[in-house]
């Protein structure tokens, strides 16, 4: 009975969160403050990236400290395809890039999935601290590759001159681009919910809770985890492609380990394993960044302090605070 009540409360808060994210840009538009539309777009994209990670980390208990690799990869796909599309130089097999998001997205998703498969296949042979460090190391490998490969800007990054196109939408208008990101976020959160409720999702959560039992009933934990890791990488890669389009710029900083850390932070701030945890966390994070950044140049110090206090004393995150304890262990 009580459980049902909590679930309803969480659902209610989820609806409010999603509604708020939609309302902010419209209000900003009405008051002529387009900057807030960009902030809301940033929240939506970071939430999408963290939703991807939440699949591996929240449901599967796989603490990947290397998801920046997939995020940056998605970003570079958008940047590189757009730059070839602009210059007309052939990229591969006579294909010379494109500025169409509906081509860029699948390429980003598939590439992130393939790299996720390679990294996951090796990393998932280990667990615990090893897994954390190895995912971190692989992400650094991709980072150093991007820094030392001069063809696409190296350390300086790569600009996207004109935001990529989506059929029937003026993507250069902040509001239109926000709506694209918002819809992609909602679809992905829906996908997350479907996966969580599916047989596969149950098996994935079971591998987190008790690996031996899962193996005993005849399911291979390794395969389940690898599948989850790959889907997780794909979602984060898609977010990266959108993020590059938001900033119209992609650089190795999207691949840096700070980015991986931030993605984990978003999930923890919001509430691990929760459907809207990443959105709550991303909203909170961007709000902190903006509010603290307005008060002091040293906002990172205070961000660190707040994060430390949350980890030490408030483990459920924002949704844990608002909607009670998580339903699952």
């Amino acid at each position: 009975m009580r459980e049902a009540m909590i679930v309803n409360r969480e659902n209610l808060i989820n609806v409010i969160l999603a509604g708020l994210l939609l309302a902010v840009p419209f209000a900003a538009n009405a008051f002529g403050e387009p900057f807030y539309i960009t902030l809301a777009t940033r929240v939506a994209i970071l939430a999408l990236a963290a939703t991807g990670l939440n699949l591996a980390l929240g449901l599967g208990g796989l603490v990947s400290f290397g998801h920046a690799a997939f995020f940056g990869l998605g970003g570079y796909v958008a940047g590189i395809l757009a730059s070839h599309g602009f210059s007309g130089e052939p990229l591969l097999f006579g294909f010379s890039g494109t500025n169409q998001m509906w081509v860029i997205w699948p390429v980003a998703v598939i590439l992130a999935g393939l790299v996720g498969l390679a990294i996951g296949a090796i990393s998932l042979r280990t667990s615990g601290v090893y897994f954390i460090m190895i995912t971190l190391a692989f992400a650094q490998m991709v980072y150093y590759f991007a820094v030392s490969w001069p063809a696409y800007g190296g350390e300086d990054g790569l600009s996207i001159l004109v935001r990529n196109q989506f059929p029937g939408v003026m993507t250069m208008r902040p509001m239109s681009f926000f709506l694209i990101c918002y819809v992609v976020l909602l679809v992905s959160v829906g996908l997350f919910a479907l996966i969580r409720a599916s047989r596969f999702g149950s098996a994935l959560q079971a591998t987190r809770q008790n690996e031996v039992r899962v193996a005993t009933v005849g399911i291979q934990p390794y395969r389940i985890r690898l599948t989850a890791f790959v889907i997780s990488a794909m979602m984060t890669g898609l977010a990266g492609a959108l993020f590059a389009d938001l900033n119209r710029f992609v650089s190795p900083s999207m691949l840096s380990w700070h980015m991986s850390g931030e993605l984990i932070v978003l999930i923890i701030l919001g509430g691990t394993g929760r459907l809207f945890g990443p959105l709550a966390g991303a909203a909170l994070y961007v709000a902190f960044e903006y509010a603290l950044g307005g008060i002091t140049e040293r906002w990172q110090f205070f961000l660190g302090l707040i994060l430390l206090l949350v980890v030490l004393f408030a483990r459920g995150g924002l949704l844990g605070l608002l909607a009670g304890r998580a339903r699952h262990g």
Partner: protein
Amino acid sequence: MTFALALEQLLNGLQLGVMLFLMAAGLTLIFGVMGLINLAHGSLYMVGAFACAVVAAWTGSFWIGLVASLACAAAAGAVVELLVIRRLYDRDHLDQVLATFALILMFSEGTRWLFGSFPLYLDIPPLLQGAVPLPGGAEYPVYRLAIIAAGAAVAFGLYMLISRTRLGMRIRAGESDREMIGALGVDIRTLYTVVFALGAALAGLAGALVGALQSVQVGMGEPVLILAFVVIVIGGIGSIKGALLGALLVGVTDTMGRFLLPKILALFVPPAQAGMIGGAAASMLIYIVMALILAVKPRGLFPAAHA
């Protein structure tokens, strides 16, 4: 390519390896005894470097600065352990990663607050300036040789500490059974603080030694931290012997890869392209080595008994 040049690069690789060992030894010790993954270890490296640079600038003596770096890093480590880290021993690795990630943000921004964004510089002490001739005709800086010697001395000292002293005995006991040595009356909380401070001091020493080769700046610890992670993953987390071998392997592989790969490629492709591809491949080489080792031995070369 001459023999002298190759020898010089090999020594550079050894020097990098020795420095990585100082970092990795602390990390692996802290993990082995307390089961804690400490991302903020790179911040302690930075603290050591800043302490050395500031004190050396005040007093005019590198050596007083070196002592200060050990003292400051150990003190910072002890304070952090008492305030934050000891609350994390019973938590899962995710909480440890996040809390120590938060500490990095605070250390980095705090240091920038105190010292500004401009790098500090640290001069090599007069005693160790100059170069010595190498067989083959090249010269090699004395200071880098001194780092290699210092690292070897620390490795030996650490070995003696752990295998021959009472503190070392307790550390080994802590690695194999935490509850039992607590039950036997050893003050385990103090032991943890001491081990953490010891690891911090080693990181601070590495920072101070390297500070005289590079500029001392915020964020200097992070690339080293990640290399040190690669080292302990290769060596086996919790194993000091593994940390030593892993550090030398990573140091030499990285340096020789950057030196040799472009040259080898130049035999097959035009020089400009060889430089570009070789450079990019060399930057990935140690991670590839790590992946290969893990494919064969998922728990590293010298897996610790538990963990």
